[in-house]
């Protein structure tokens, strides 16, 4: 485990307010999801999941076909598709377009994909103003942080934190009531929307047969981003394409329910090309950036490619006992929770944070709630094996290998096993039948020490099971 990963986890665990915030927020989202997917509320929930999984599998297995179909249809409606291999290509494209159009101000609606490529930072570095407009993302941008949760980016901020951020960054009178804070943001951002030259959005779905970008949101900032400025750029991962507009009847029913427990999000925008003749408003130019950024690396493996089915609902984060303790910022990249644990190593390479696939108890909750039925525990296991293979290649796990050889030898020799048991029993403190909170110094070293720092040991029994068996 890297020291940074370790440190962030410890910081989060030690912060009682943060623990409560994570626990309450994820708990509420989790309960709402359970309520609206219950049998009496959505009888065909399991059927919809099966269909969503089949559609995603089909789309990813034939990705080139659907990308080309999508591209043809976007162009038929007067839009343009731009393929980008990485962060630099995305920012180069936006910067070049901004330069040619004399654009200075960009409004952005929530997009994990643009977080992935640090688009704001790159644009601001070149003198453009790029403003996040989703309230949570705006708070995070002003605080110079990364989103804490796929769906609730500012989950870790209290109203007092937000008040501090707004007074410092926006020079407004201090308010701590959420309604008033929201109004402040609305006022500032409304101005930006009306002045912006370019709107940049993400995409929840790309529809191959109609060449449309679909955006799902609650605030209306994505609608404003894609309606007010003259230019709309949607930035999407190549895996977002689905075959038909009609498939939305399946995905839309699952997405909002899984994410926030709503039947539908407040706004679902289906956008196909720039404003057409006769239409009163809407952008004059429409671009879709299709981003690779490591996604093609996930395709060759038939099992692991299911990681690309993700519709970013966040349900697996809320269900995950590990996420609910260690929070979003402990994770080494923009994606956190179970989905972060499976895509980060695949996008960035397993050695980026080798401990990541192990940060799971494999309880299976993530796979159970996933609306597109990604078998997350299975992919985690496959990645653990990849980590071990890569460590073996680099000769890093010699001690561990030795330990396992010793373990295997002990386990297959009953006499030795019994002797080892007796030795452990005599070394460990008896604890007088109570749980043991600390162990003698010689036992508290290295990985043992880390393991014991967060755990108590059960009292060691006075007689082993084998002894009892013999004396029965």
């Amino acid at each position, binding site marked *: 485990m890297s020291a940074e990963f370790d440190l962030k986890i410890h910081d989060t665990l030690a912060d009682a307010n943060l623990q409560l915030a994570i626990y309450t927020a994820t708990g509420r989202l989790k309960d709402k999801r359970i309520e609206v997917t219950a049998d009496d509320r959505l009888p065909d929930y399991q059927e919809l999941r099966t269909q969503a999984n089949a559609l995603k599998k089909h789309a990813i297995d034939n990705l080139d076909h659907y990308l080309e179909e999508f591209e043809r249809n976007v162009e038929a409606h007067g839009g343009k598709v731009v393929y980008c291999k990485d962060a630099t290509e995305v920012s180069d494209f936006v910067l070049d377009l901004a330069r040619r159009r004399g654009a200075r101000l960009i409004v952005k609606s929530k997009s994990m994909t643009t977080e992935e490529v640090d688009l704001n930072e790159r644009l601001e570095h070149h003198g453009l103003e790029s403003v996040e407009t989703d309230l949570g993302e705006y708070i995070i941008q002003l605080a110079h942080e990364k989103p804490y949760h796929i769906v*609730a980016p500012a989950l870790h901020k209290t109203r007092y934190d937000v008040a501090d951020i707004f007074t410092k960054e926006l020079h407004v009178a201090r308010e701590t009531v959420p309604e008033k804070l929201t109004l402040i943001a609305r006022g500032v951002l409304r101005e930006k929307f009306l002045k912006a030259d370019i709107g940049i959005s993400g995409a929840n779905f790309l529809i191959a047969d109609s060449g449309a970008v679909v955006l799902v949101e609650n605030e209306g900032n994505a609608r404003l981003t894609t309606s007010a400025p003259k230019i709309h750029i949607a930035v999407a991962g190549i895996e977002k394409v689905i075959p038909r507009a009609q498939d939305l009847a399946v995905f839309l029913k699952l997405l909002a329910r899984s994410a926030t427990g709503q039947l539908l999000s407040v706004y679902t925008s289906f956008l*196909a090309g720039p404003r057409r003749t006769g*239409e009163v408003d809407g952008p004059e130019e429409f671009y879709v950036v299709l981003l690779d950024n490591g996604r093609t690396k996930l395709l060759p493996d038939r099992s692991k490619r299911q990681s690309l089915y993700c519709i970013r609902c966040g349900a697996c984060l809320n269900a995950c006992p590990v996420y609910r303790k260690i929070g979003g910022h402990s994770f080494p990249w923009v994606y956190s929770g179970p989905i972060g644990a499976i895509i980060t190593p695949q996008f960035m390479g397993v050695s980026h944070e080798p401990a990541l696939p192990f940060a799971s108890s494999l309880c299976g909750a993530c796979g159970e709630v996933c609306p597109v039925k990604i078998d997350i525990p299975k992919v985690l296991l496959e990645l653990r094996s990849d980590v071990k293979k890569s460590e073996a290649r680099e000769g890093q796990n010699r001690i561990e290998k030795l330990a396992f050889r010793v373990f295997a030898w002990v386990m297959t020799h009953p006499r030795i096993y019994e002797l080892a048991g007796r030795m452990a029993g005599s070394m460990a403190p008896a604890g007088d039948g109570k749980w043991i909170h600390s162990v003698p110094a010689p036992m508290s070293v290295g990985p043992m020490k880390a393991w014991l720092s967060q755990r108590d040991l059960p009292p060691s029994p006075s007689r082993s099971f084998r002894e009892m068996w013999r004396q029965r």
Partner: protein
Amino acid sequence: MSRDNILHKVRTALGRSAGQAVADVPPVRLRLPEVAMEDRIALMRSRVEALAGKTARVPTMDAAREFVAAAIAGKTAVASNAPYLEECGIAGLPGVRSGIREVAELTEVCARVDIGITSADYALSDTGTLVMIASPAESRLVSLLPPAHLAVVPRERILTGLDELFTLLPDPAAQTSSMVLITGPSRTADIEQILVRGVHGPGQVTVVIVG
């Protein structure tokens, strides 16, 4: 150029060749329940109200006009170019700007007035949703910029849900550059999970069902 490179990588990884057709496309899954009109209306109203939207049901187009006139009561409003609003006589009510076809003017007016009045192409009863299709009749901004949105919908446009919508419109892009589904007032819960309405879009949504 990255296009060909990316597509090539995708094909190689998947073991496909350029232009290879797809097999075993999962069939479309659309279910059309039979729901009587009165039940659709009742469900539509209860869904919208559960989201803190308001609803009203009026018997005739004249009654719709009277309802809207009372709702405006001294406030300012903008109406979309929907023929239905014209037929109801809503577009001509005092205090209502209408007939705007130029984007700069529309933006300026929508950013200033209290209420945006539209019709809706469809409504989805099982979610309480308004379906707004951009066209010369309906713009994007009227239902978006003003703090309140009021939609006047003849009852025959109330569908059961998403499945019926996508049965009627297998490809919405064939007729519009923008179809927006509106389900209740704009909201956020980004600060301490506390629900606040009207963050960027309208904080009040009123659905008037005619007939």
